[in-house]
């Protein structure tokens, strides 16, 4: 599975930064214009980023002030990254009077990862098509070239 990893240093304590992943009033400041959260394992969240762009998922781990894990997906009907199809892990560590934030997004489909694993184009297309069809794999209608 392909992963995206992004890091940033913030001049704020891990406690403060952590609240930005759970408190809707703070989350709305960086994630969208309407936010609902139920920050406990199994609890859901919904982020309205724009009219037609809504992300949602479920908290998997809520461990203040160091770690928060949630599933992630777009609510668009034919989005590749469906709700629940990928996972975001956020690690917060005290560093230089602030917080080092590491965000790792795993479970993303990509052509690169498919090629790396030797399945290539066809494997990736199958996966993407499955995602596009809402997770129902259906018959493999792929023709050999």
């Amino acid at each position: 599975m392909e992963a995206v990893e992004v890091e940033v240093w913030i001049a704020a304590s891990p406690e403060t930064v952590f609240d930005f992943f759970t408190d809707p009033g703070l989350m709305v400041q960086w994630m969208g214009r309407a936010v609902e959260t139920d920050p406990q394992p199994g609890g859901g969240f919904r982020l309205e980023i724009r009219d037609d762009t809504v992300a949602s998922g479920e908290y998997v781990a809520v461990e203040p002030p160091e770690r928060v894990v949630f599933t992630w997906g777009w609510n668009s009907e034919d989005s590749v990254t469906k709700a629940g199809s990928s996972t975001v892990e956020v690690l917060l560590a005290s560093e230089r009077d602030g917080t080092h934030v590491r965000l790792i997004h795993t479970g993303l489909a990509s052509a690169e990862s498919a090629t790396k694993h030797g399945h290539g184009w066809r494997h990736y297309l199958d996966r993407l098509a499955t995602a596009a069809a809402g997770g129902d794999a259906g018959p493999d209608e792929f023709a050999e070239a």
Partner: protein
Amino acid sequence: MADLANAELEQIDLAARAIAEPRRRQILALVRDEELSAGEIAAHFDVSRPAVSQHLTVLRGAGLLNERREGTSRLYRARPEGLADLRDFMNGFWTERLERLKLAAELEQQRRNKRGKRRDDGGGGRGRGVDRRKP
């Protein structure tokens, strides 16, 4: 940036929609390793030539197919990097969001520090500045 993010989301959705159709996946598989003309592609299917052309247009629009003209014919080949866009998109999305998080969290920290300090000045006891923002 929000507009850009949205445009890229749309591009990814276009790709997903393009390959949700079984025949379009078959076309991509055909031109995965070799360049073929529209006629050669159509010969593999028992649907009309215009129907195949329509599929080719959708695949090109989604960035999954390259088209090259040679003389009077058009040659097609798969463009796998069109699908790598998803990773690039999420990378850009989170980079932008974390920048916004940084700005917001640093402001919030200053607010909390001030609140804590005020409480200390007034002889208050618990002022460590880690309480929730009041609505």
